[in-house]
């Protein structure tokens, strides 16, 4: 999370119309990226961040390296609103519904379940029985 935010900041700070985050409506945000500028603006901005991370790491420079990383991942006060919108748009956590295997007539059979709460429960019930 922290790491990807640092990369987002680097891409935003590169300016030159590469990427921006726009407010839409009451509680919406949209990422606007100019794909024609990925190689000319986006990638070099990320490479710049990368080079710094690399050099501090290579030279065991924890003092500057940690400071640099904390700065790169710090969230400014005026992003408070953005954060509120992000939280408003939070998606429900994903759950994996896993299958079961059983032996029928000497053959292994894979049984899968529907991706829903019902399917999830059924998979657990049948797993206990097996």
């Amino acid at each position, binding site marked *: *999370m*922290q*790491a*990807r*935010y*640092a*990369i*987002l900041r680097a*891409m935003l700070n590169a300016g030159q119309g590469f*990427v921006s*985050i726009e407010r839409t409506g009451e509680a*919406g*945000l*949209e*990422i606007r*990226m100019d*794909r024609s500028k*990925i*190689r000319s603006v*986006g*990638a070099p901005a*990320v*490479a710049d*961040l*990368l*080079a710094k*991370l*690399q*050099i501090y*790491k*290579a*030279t*065991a*420079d*924890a003092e500057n*390296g*940690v*400071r640099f*990383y*904390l700065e*790169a*991942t*710090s*969230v400014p*006060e005026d*992003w408070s609103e*953005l*954060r509120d919108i*992000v*939280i408003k*748009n*939070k*998606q429900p956590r*994903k759950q*994996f519904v*896993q*299958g079961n*295997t059983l032996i029928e007539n000497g053959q292994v059979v*894979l049984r899968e379940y529907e*991706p829903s709460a019902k399917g999830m429960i059924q998979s657990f019930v049948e797993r206990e029985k097996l």
Partner: protein
Amino acid sequence: MDGTPLQLVYGDFKAEMAKAAENVAKAKEYAANDHQRKMLDAYHESFITGSIEAHMDSQRHWLHDIGPAVETNLGFIETYRDPHGIRAEFEGFVAMVNKEQTRKFGKLVDRAPQFVSRLPWSQEFERETINKPDFTSLEVLAFATSGVPAGINIPNYSNITQVLGSKNVSLGNVISAQAPNEKFPFIAPKDLELYRKYRNPSFEVQVGTHELGHGTGKLFEQDAQGKLNFDQEKTINPLTNAPVQTWYKPGQTFNSLFEAVSGSYEECRAECIALTLSHHTDILEIFGYTGQEAEDVLYVMYLNMARAGLVGLEFYDMSAKKVAWYEIILKIAQILNLWTV
């Protein structure tokens, strides 16, 4: 303890561990080779007696079992859920190797020296021998634990990985798992269709180049005899334009010096490498993408990274941020790590 007698009682999860041990013994009949048989014996010993040493042995045998068609791992492995980072949670997985996907990662690894030379540092800052990761792509049949990961690098026993290396695993069907009607906030409507179409392919490329990235970069070190592993007079630090002044002394590691941020810092480094390498068309071609499709995969990768950075804000603790002397804030931040994830 101050005279009070303390009684240690063993046997947590006795019933469950006995069941696991019983089934591990039965599995031996179906083992593909001797490494797997020895691994199962070691699991059995560990689950019956509680021995960590036996579990370590199981992992040694597991590492020796190179390129199995069915990949598995069992035991108390990841410590993410323990606030002290010591106690591990039980997990077990069974997966089938995706040979085609694994071949793609293999091609990437084979041409690693060529790709790594494109990273934004001079040759002196790169390893003499690129650490070629052992990299497999798996399709999970079952993964029993609280949180199913998208990729793993195990074992976690550093005493073993220093000697035998580790296995890097990408879980293909976990990466591509999609909930019905899944929404992707913050992607502009005009990009949604493309995003849905190329989200998984682009993440695949990202995972491959990311893992490659972890194996790159030279650490400047001084050994116990005082010898440096680099030319101190001639190696220039591009940030200072002066010769490199600092390096790792005996006993120091990246984790020991960078402490609380080291994990996240290294992930950031690897993600940056993924983005910096993936725009090269020859790398996209290894994954099977050329022409317009390659450009679309690249666009979605960058979009996805921007989105992930935004979504991650949920985990930042805004209230704890205070203005103070920088050294103090640094220490506090390091201890508290303002980011909870």
